[in-house]
């Protein structure tokens, strides 16, 4: 699904962002803390009230869709989503089917299959009965991803999905997301992980200051300006890919 942002804004947190995310691509959003990444993601999912500008999903203005229709197209995984309810792992993932269910189309065998697949995708098949309160942060994060997958969206919006995950599950998740046939937009902190995206948008003070292929965007110059680090590109001798090593910025004397 194509996602188009036209002059998107929300108060002073996000200002005049326009970009086009192509069908099927994995789009990474990077930027320092407080640069407006999370807000932009919510704007793209139509979750912010009184937003300026417009979002189009496959050329349909988001404002013309009901919340339910939006949720059938876009799944969102926010940071810090928690619950006090004694939900089981399966309960939480089943919530993902909500936009597809109604009193006349209740939860059926097809939905069970979709939920099973989503659980398998995040490697949680054996833990379906575990109560939410007993899960670690990483496990909870994987359940949120599974819930989003169970929503069977055409676009997945993830806010720092690798948070809380150990390195194995970080890589597994990024691999999973990259392999999905859907459009993925995600905010990332780890710039080396961002290198795995098809394209990147760089946020700074509410504006998207750069957008393009990782190699075009992640230049030592941009990184120095936006992130205030000294980045040293290195080449992996095994596959020739570029890695960064980060050092503190030398203060100008």
């Amino acid at each position, binding site marked *: 699904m194509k996602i188009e942002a036209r002059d998107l804004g929300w108060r002073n947190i996000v200002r005049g962002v326009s970009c086009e995310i192509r069908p099927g691509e994995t789009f990474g959003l990077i930027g320092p803390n407080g640069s407006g990444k999370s807000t932009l993601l*919510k704007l793209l*999912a139509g*979750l912010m009230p009184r937003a300026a500008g417009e979002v189009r999903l496959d050329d349909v203005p988001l404002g013309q869709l*009901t*919340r*339910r*229709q*939006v*949720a*059938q197209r*876009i*799944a*969102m995984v*926010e940071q810090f*989503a*928690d*619950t*006090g*309810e*004694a*939900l*089981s792992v399966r*309960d*939480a993932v089943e*919530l*993902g089917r*909500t*936009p597809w*269910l109604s*009193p*006349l*189309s*209740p939860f*059926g065998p097809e939905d069970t299959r979709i939920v099973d697949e989503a659980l398998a995708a995040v490697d949680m098949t054996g833990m379906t009965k575990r*109560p939410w309160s007993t899960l670690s942060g990483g496990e909870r994060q994987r359940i949120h991803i599974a819930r989003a997958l169970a*929503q069977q969206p055409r676009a997945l919006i993830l806010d720092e999905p690798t948070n809380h995950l150990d390195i194995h599950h970080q890589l597994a998740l990024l691999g999973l997301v990259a392999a999905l046939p859907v459009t993925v937009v995600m905010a990332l902190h780890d710039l080396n992980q961002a290198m795995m995206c098809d394209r990147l948008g760089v946020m700074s003070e509410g504006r998207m200051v750069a957008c393009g292929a990782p190699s075009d965007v992640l230049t030592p110059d941009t990184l120095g300006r936006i992130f205030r680090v000294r980045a040293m590109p290195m080449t992996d001798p095994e596959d020739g890919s570029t890695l960064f090593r980060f050092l503190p910025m030398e203060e100008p004397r």
Partner: protein
Amino acid sequence: MTRRAALVALTLPVLPRVGLGAVLLALAVLAGVIVGETALPLRLVGDVLAVKLWGAERALDPIDAGILWSYRLPRTLVAAACGAGLALSGVVLQALVRNALADPYLLGVSAGAGAGAVSVALLGIGGGAIGLSAGAFGGATAAFVLVALLARAAGGGPAQLVLAGIAGSQLFNALTSFLIAKSANAEQARGLMFWLLGNLSGVRWPDVTMALPVVGAGFLVCLAHVRPLDAFSFGSGAAAALGIAVRRVQLVLIAAVTLMTATLVSLVGSIGFVGLVIPHAVRLLVGPRHARLVPASALAGAIFLIAADIASRVLIPGQVVPIGVVTALVGAPGFALILIRNRRRA
């Protein structure tokens, strides 16, 4: 799958449970009708029902038959409706504001009802033509509107709603205390407290025709929103992301809950404990998913309040204990047992 097939698939597996619930409820109503201040023979139940419902010819003692048909049956039915309505309100508010301490009176409805009833009784509003019930309903509605406006002005989130509810409740409770301190004597204060603590003794058929439709409609509204209520588990943001029209759902559910609670408070006073604890107890028994929680809470609330009403009539012979006292006295230890049992199982 056709619609019809979908409906069959939806209803078939739950039919036995619905049946079981209906049987339990019927047994509770029967107990509520038989047990009371004075002893009535079980045979009388069949006779009265035969006469009233099928027009059969039976010789009945008019007072016994009247007590059964005109006092106890409506009283038991209203107790059931009241228990179900309060439990449902608790379920809905606990889900919407994501606070385990939320109860049906959270939004100032009970405090408003008290202030309204006391105004009628002590300020002579309506000159005796308006009953406490009408005053209570007016007060409950006024308090809720005030709380809703305040919450909206404060930003409109669940936390603001809870805080506005507390402020509103305090204000109306203070108003009640002020009116009582200003103008009531001991006998009146007793009368009002008795009424405010909850009292089913004045219930007649007209109250049934108020309570049952309102609670029935509220139940259907809640039942139609079981998925949205589930979706609120991770907060209103997550609910929106799952396709829930958050504002509309909140508005519909809170309106339903307020209408139910205000109606019930105006009919029988503010019976505590049911709306707070029944949802938690039922959650421990059937889990947090609202598809089960909503009907199970309604059933448990109904049966619990019928039982509490029976207890209030027989606990002290010849005297009726306020039902709100019974719900807490009987309910608190029961809830403690469920808590402990649940810990062992976990």
